[in-house]
Each structure stands twice: as structure tokens, then as C-alpha cells.
């Protein structure tokens, strides 16, 4: 474009941050620069190599750019790159490492819903969905992306303070023969063996068993 640019320090720590395959490019401003720095972003598919500019992230002053749409095919791998501009100066293009959406994403904990009777609790787990462009788009569960996905479930008896663990492959679990009128707290984690991916444990969902009907 004929613009003349002197050199500016490079953006730092350019990397993808991905959760449930929502793939966002993040970076830090060049050292010592305050406000006013603008950025441009481009990305490429590994093996194709042609750099493609991201128009929505041209001359932006924020330090992130959502590339989920451009990197949604998780059978491909990607690079992204950022360049900084300030007062007629510009930095080099700074690239990420090669990004593999399948192995480099983090997975949220499952959703947990709990119900109870007088002597049992029923737990239903729902794996998070893969990121999608818009709400109308068909949902893809991470269960479909990672067929070997399992759940680790922790059940805490609030009265005895004893915690039990269950490892299950399907998404429901009934724990029978519990004590009536007792509070139980449930938390669950997703566990994928290969590639090695574990979510954190969900927050605890507590519920009390009901009064004993026979009494």
C-alpha cells in the first residue's frame, strides 16, 4: 500500500487459546508500548501455507482475535500471525506455533443435573458442545469429537464427609441405597484417554435425599 514503516518491537506471546474448540488468537502488546498500537492478523492452513488476512481483525487495538470460524475444521492444523503498527512504525509478523484444534483445545467440565428420591440420587451429565458459528447451527457434542470420552463422578456425603468416585462411559448414574434426609454433593470431570485431555471438575451440585416414605 506504499506506506513507509520503520521498525517497532514485536507483539509478544502470540498463541491460540482454545476452549471447546472456540479458538481465539491472543497476544501481548510490544514491550514498552502504551495505547495507540494497532494490529493486523492473518492465518494459514498447514500444508497449504497461503496466508489469509482476517478483515475483522485489521487495524484493531485489542489484543485478541477470534479465529474459531477459520479454524473450525479440526482435521486441519493452522498457524496465525500478528503485526503491530504505531506512529508510522511496524513490527515483524509474529507467528504462533502450529495449532491442532483436536489436541490443543481445553474442555469445559460437563453440565451436571441431580435429582433425588428418599434413598437414591440420579445424576445426568452433559458434555459441552463444540463451538459453533451461530446458535441456529446444528450442535456438535464433544462426545462426537472424542468417542473415547468418559466421566469421573465424585459423590460427597455431607454428613459423613466421605467421598466416592465413579468412572462411567454413559452419561447417567443412579446411586441407590442412600440415607434419607442426607445432603449429597456431586461434581464431575470429563476424561479423554487419547489424545490426553481432561476437563477440570465441575462445581459441586448438592441435593438432599427425601424423608423415608416407609417411616
Amino acid at each position, binding site marked *: 500500500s506504499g506506506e513507509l514503516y520503520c521498525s517497532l518491537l514485536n507483539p509478544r506471546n502470540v498463541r491460540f487459546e482454545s476452549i471447546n474448540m472456540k479458538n481465539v488468537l491472543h497476544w501481548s502488546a510490544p514491550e514498552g508500548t502504551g495505547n495507540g498500537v494497532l494490529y493486523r492478523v492473518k492465518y494459514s492452513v498447514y500444508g497449504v501455507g497461503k496466508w489469509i488476512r482476517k478483515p475483522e481483525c485489521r487495524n484493531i487495538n485489542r489484543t485478541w482475535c477470534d479465529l474459531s470460524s477459520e479454524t473450525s475444521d479440526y482435521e486441519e492444523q493452522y498457524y496465525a500471525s500478528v503485526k503491530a503498527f504505531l506512529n508510522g512504525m511496524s513490527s515483524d509478523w509474529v507467528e504462533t506455533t502450529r495449532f491442532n484444534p483436536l489436541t490443543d483445545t481445553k474442555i469445559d467440565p460437563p453440565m451436571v443435573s441431580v435429582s433425588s428420591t428418599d434413598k437414591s440420587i440420579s445424576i445426568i451429565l452433559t458434555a459441552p458442545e463444540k463451538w459453533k458459528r451461530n446458535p441456529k447451527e446444528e450442535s456438535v457434542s464433544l462426545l462426537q469429537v472424542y468417542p473415547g470420552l468418559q466421566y469421573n463422578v465424585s459423590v460427597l456425603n455431607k454428613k*459423613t464427609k*466421605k*467421598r*466416592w*468416585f*465413579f*468412572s462411567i462411559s454413559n452419561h447417567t448414574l443412579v446411586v441407590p*441405597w*442412600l440415607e434419607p434426609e442426607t445432603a449429597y454433593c456431586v461434581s464431575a470431570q470429563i476424561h479423554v484417554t487419547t489424545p490426553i485431555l481432561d476437563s477440570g471438575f465441575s462445581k459441586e451440585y448438592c441435593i438432599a435425599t427425601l424423608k423415608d416414605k416407609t417411616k
Partner: protein
Amino acid sequence: EEALPPAPQNISILSTNMKHILTWSPVIIQGETVRYSVEFQGEYERVYANESWIPISECSLITATLCNITEDISATVAYNLRVRADLGARRSEWGTLKGFFNRNTTSLTPPVMKVIADGYHLLVELEDMGPAFQFRVLYWKKGQERRMQQKVVKEVSSVVHLDTMEAGAEYCVKAQSYVEAINRSSSFSQTQCVRAQGDTSMWL
């Protein structure tokens, strides 16, 4: 010209539960500190990479006479191991392990196990033996050995739930460790029995 230190002798491997330790006899030279370096060679290196050897940096120029080689023996193939003694600038010949070592010869011990009855629930706590291990847990109602049930436990983070028990009944449990990578199991642990809460009349 000063003599070279002798090559280390009695090189052997202690391998238990997929932890492999290389040991050798010390080279004794009065008033001197002898240091040792260890290298390994997998079947791949022997057959496809010109019989090359790979140094283990954690066991380079060490004074100890043992080296934990677990991290490097990470395939089920035949490995060669060798040790050399260094005395200042002088270096011994390599002492080589007699025969190959394959991790599928590791000795496997049964897991340390604690069986718990919590109300009507049968639970087990298993020792964490490392990422290579799973556990086959067998449990049965006392007197009904022929109706033995099995659970494969891969995560040993804490107290693992096995099953619910009939009120007042006694249940027995035993477990063995299993390593998928070498497709071998340990012997079974001692059997432990616990009793469920309540009295058996509840079930009549």
C-alpha cells in the same frame, strides 16, 4: 602413562511394577572419586540407526552406582544398557548389561488395597502404581463365590465405588494390577471382607 579405570562390572536391572533401575558395582580407586555415565540402545537403534547409543543425561558423570532408566525404557522391545567409569580425563571401556532387557519381564505385585463398607455401599481404595497400571477388582457375596463380579478400575484417584450390598450381608474383594502395554497381570491381593449395615431380616 596412567592406567585407565576398569569398566564397571555386575551390571544388572531391578525392575518392579514398571520401574526399572540399572545398578552396577562401584569401581574402587583409592583416594579418587569415580564418576559413571549410562547409555541405552533400543531395538530400533540397533536395527535401523547404525547401532547408535543414546546417553541418559540424568545419569551422566554421576557418583551413584544406580540409574533410574524407567523414562527411557518406554517401549516393549529389547534394550541394551551400558555404563562407563570416568576418573578425571581418563575413561574406562564400556561395561554392558549381559543380555537384553525388555520391560515385559518386570515383576508385578498386587496392589495395596483397602475395602470399605459405607452403609449399603461397597468401596475400594487402591494404591496409585503409576500411569501404566489398571486394576481388575473381583467381588462377591460371601458364600456365593460362583457369582463373582468384576470391575476394571483405571482411575485410582480415591475411594472407588464398586456396588451396593444387601443389608447385613458380608462381601469379599480381591484385586490384581494389570499393565496393558505389556499385557500382563500381577497375582491377586489378599481377600478382604466387610459387612453391610443393617440386619439380614430386612431382605426376608
